[in-house]
């Protein structure tokens, strides 16, 4: 789950990370009022859950409250990569002398959280990684020991910080680590962490991604979820316990297993069509879940054919077959479909489909080709 900049920074602030004074506005008038309260120059920042909002014109400076209002007027309602800006963060503008990147991710290979830091902050870390990999510092943290002061100091000195900035940095790095751990984050990032003209460190921008698997123990964070984050169909799927990602093609796919679901998408493409979605019904799915999944697929008007690919292990063929038929009773549709069922209880599943005159295929390749042909109107 993604958090907005203002949400991420508020969490960081709870762990002692200094952030600019600022508030969120949903109207230009509110933006003006916040700018008046803050006094001085402010920055008006669109809060959308995609990257590249700066380039898209979604972040603007304002010298006074009137300007803040005018700028907010422009930004609110703006479309950034398909998302409409509904909120802006109005922050005190910082006097920036230096920009640092400071982030934490999970390093899969060493199975530990790792700090990523660079004295070349303010740009995307992926760009620094590509253009100047030596400018990036990696510091793994033992998740049992936690972050130690000496590690934070080493990081500070490696970033070239000196004097009073050292102790400020130690506090920020340890706070960020604690925020990462206590929120079950998969990413916590301050970019830029700036050195101000007064010699203070300040987290000017922040970002957090949370581990969906751990949200059950963070109802407070779950409550921060923005409906912008996901497509309506993705939300319904998530609430039903389905893994679903909306795509742009015409072949709806329902598969058990994530790897097989990806392979099924690839095969659809291989045979000349585009998948309409990724959908993994998970292990051991029951009829009701299959029906929900089918409703989600059919709700997409672009879908011209549906491909079921079930290789039973935990999941049983008869359960899936019943789910398909049950869903079709509720959702009357003319969209053509083909199913390929193998594995646990495959015979029972196929018998159920056959009795209902539902088209089926014996191999994945055949099923994909049938679905593509159906979508092109070559078969019904």
């Amino acid at each position: 789950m993604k958090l907005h900049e203002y949400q991420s920074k508020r969490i960081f602030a709870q762990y002692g990370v200094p952030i600019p004074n600022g508030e969120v506005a949903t109207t230009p008038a509110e933006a003006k009022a916040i700018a008046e309260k803050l006094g001085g120059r402010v920055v008006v920042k669109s809060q959308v859950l995609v990257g590249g909002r700066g380039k898209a014109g979604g972040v603007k400076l304002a010298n006074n409250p009137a300007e803040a209002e005018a700028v907010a007027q422009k930004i609110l309602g703006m479309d950034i990569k398909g998302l409409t800006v509904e909120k802006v963060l109005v922050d005190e503008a910082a006097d920036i002398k230096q920009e640092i990147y400071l982030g934490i991710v999970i390093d899969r290979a060493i199975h530990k959280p790792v700090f990523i830091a660079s004295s070349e902050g303010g740009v995307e870390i992926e760009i620094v990684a590509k253009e100047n990999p030596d400018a990036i510092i990696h510091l793994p943290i033992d998740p049992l020991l936690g972050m130690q002061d000496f590690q934070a100091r080493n990081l500070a000195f490696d970033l070239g910080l000196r004097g009073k900035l050292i102790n400020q940095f130690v506090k920020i790095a340890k706070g960020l680590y604690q925020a990462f751990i206590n929120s079950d984050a998969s990413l916590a990032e301050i970019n830029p962490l700036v050195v101000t003209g007064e010699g203070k460190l300040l987290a000017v921008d922040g970002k957090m991604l949370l581990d969906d698997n751990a949200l059950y123990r963070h109802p407070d964070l779950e409550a921060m979820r923005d409906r912008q984050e996901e497509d309506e169909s993705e939300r319904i799927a998530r609430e039903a316990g389905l893994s679903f990602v909306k795509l742009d093609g015409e072949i709806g796919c329902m598969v058990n297993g994530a790897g097989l679901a990806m392979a099924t998408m690839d095969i659809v493409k291989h045979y000349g069509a585009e998948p309409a979605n990724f959908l993994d019904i998970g292990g051991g799915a029951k009829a009701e879940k299959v029906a929900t999944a089918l409703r989600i697929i059919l709700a997409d008007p672009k879908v011209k054919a549906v491909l079921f690919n079930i290789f039973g292990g935990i999941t049983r063929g008869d359960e899936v077959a019943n789910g398909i038929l049950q869903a079709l009773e509720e959702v009357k549709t003319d969209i053509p479909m083909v199913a390929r069922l193998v594995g646990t209880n495959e015979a029972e599943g196929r018998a159920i489909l056959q009795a209902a005159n539902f088209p089926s295929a014996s191999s994945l390749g055949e099923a994909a080709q049938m679905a593509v042909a159906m979508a092109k109107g070559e078969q019904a």
Partner: protein
Amino acid sequence: MSILVGKDTRLVVQGITGREGNFHTQQMIEYGTNVVAGVTPGKGGEWTLGVPVFDTVKEAVETQGANTSIIYVPARFAADAIMEAADAGIELIVCITEGIPVLDMARVRTFLDQKDARLIGPNCPGLISPGEAKVGIMPAHIHKPGKVGLVSRSGTLTYEVVQALTDLDLGQSTAIGIGGDPIIGTNFIDVLKLFEADPDTEHVVLIGEIGGTAEQKAAEYIAKHMSKPVTSFIAGRTAPPGKRMGHAGAIIQGGEGTAAEKIAALEAVGVKVATLPTEVAELVKASMG
């Protein structure tokens, strides 16, 4: 012959009285796996499927000599179950459970660094040495004994490839699903090493997917250390960036972890990469002559 599980496996099932655990225990017993114990705290002293149930893994090890464990407990209890098994002296722990928080696994893996136990998974189908033992949830009938070693990040996609191999009469020494999560116990390289050393594995199949750099690291290892031929399939060529494709580990981030770069890395070291899952079997067949 086989790696990791076989005739010497003495299996304890953690979560044996749960729905999934009980169903798959029955399947494993039917396949011939030596299931010596089950564990469900509070149900010690009961029996299920002819197997004695204990309150703790420690008792299962002490009383029944269990050396391998398979875990079916819910995600929020799974990290504890893995540590319990390792602490009790279990040598091979197979965790089927899906949805364990990644920081739980970071702690568990760091804990396991101090122990002698090997973990397979989590979020995996387990492993099978056809004709010897099945420690997992895969449909047994698609497998047959043979000389192809198979390792995969996926579950059902593995079945697809196994089915294709068996259809071409290519049996398997051992087929292992290492799991689709960002942090797993045993990685491609660990398994490649075992297959390389196993005298009865002649060909290795590696099934990868988008996310992370495990396939690229495997490619480096293959170039340096593998004498046996390796064939591969990578899922997710059509996956968009920034979206998690089911598996918590299957996400293209910052442009990294694409199928294209993985395929390129593998092909660069001489691994044949199939376009379709069934093509894997054809490539293996051609290679083994």
